[in-house]
């Protein structure tokens, strides 16, 4: 089995209220070097690459369920054999 981590974030054009609030808190800590913060989520998906090509499987799962393309975009990383 292979562990694939799928990251889902808002598109650049979509306001991220959590990221904005966290950025303000970071600034309150005195970290003026921080220009922006974005919040997203990730899914660790264990799948069997002998049953289906990883990129095809991830694309289908992400596009049919995990991502709402009105708001969000995604990328993924193949992590390790489980």
């Amino acid at each position: 089995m292979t562990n694939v981590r799928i990251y889902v974030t808002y598109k650049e054009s979509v306001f991220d209220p959590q990221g904005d609030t966290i950025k303000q808190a970071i600034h309150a800590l005195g970290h003026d070097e921080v220009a922006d913060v974005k919040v997203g989520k990730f899914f660790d998906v264990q799948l069997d690459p002998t049953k289906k090509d990883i990129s095809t499987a991830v694309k289908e799962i992400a596009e049919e369920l995990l991502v709402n393309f009105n708001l969000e975009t995604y990328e993924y990383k193949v992590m390790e054999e489980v």
Partner: protein
Amino acid sequence: MKIAVVVFPGSNCDIDLYEALHTVLGADVEYVSHKCEDLSEFDAVMLPGGFSYGDYLRCGAIARFSKVMPEIVRMANEGKPVFGTCNGFQILTEAGLLPGALKQNNSLKFVCKTVPLVVENVQTPFTHEYTNGEVINLPIAHADGSYYADEETLAQLEENGQVVFRYAKENPNGSLHDIAGICNERGNVLGMMPHPERAVEALLGNEDGLRVFKSLLTSGTVKTEGK
């Protein structure tokens, strides 16, 4: 007219919808399980507010895969009245029956209060009892009601008169174009974040929502081809 109120796991405004239609207006209405695969006996379908499937993943995202959904899509495509309030609106967008999406309120807060709305399209089966430009007050209660669509979609919505309800004074959640409710191009599918079913009796302080349901019951005579 026979009306279905769909009950999903986590729906909590289903009884309000039922009572508004049945007790207040005497309509022929029935609860229908999310597992129901045949809505052929119904002329209209209502999706209630609440937290279907615990709002897991995204609000409405899991409800889209319910067994009842193909029937709701069929009814929408046949031009039958399909209505969603709050979580019901989120489900309709997730299912692709309405454009855009509802995201977390800009304030990050759950907003629960009565707000003024302008009615901007009175040619839908849910709004023809209102007058164009009329301002009404309806309760909202949501954490994820900020309407978002890309510029092109927003322009199409405005051009086609698909913005049915717009927040009149303050924008409570960051919705683009102050959008509170929209319909599809044909006008038979309507989704809105406010809760008209909670404003149907003077005794409870507000009956501005009652005409949504009165409109539905007399919608047989109305042409639903948008504005």
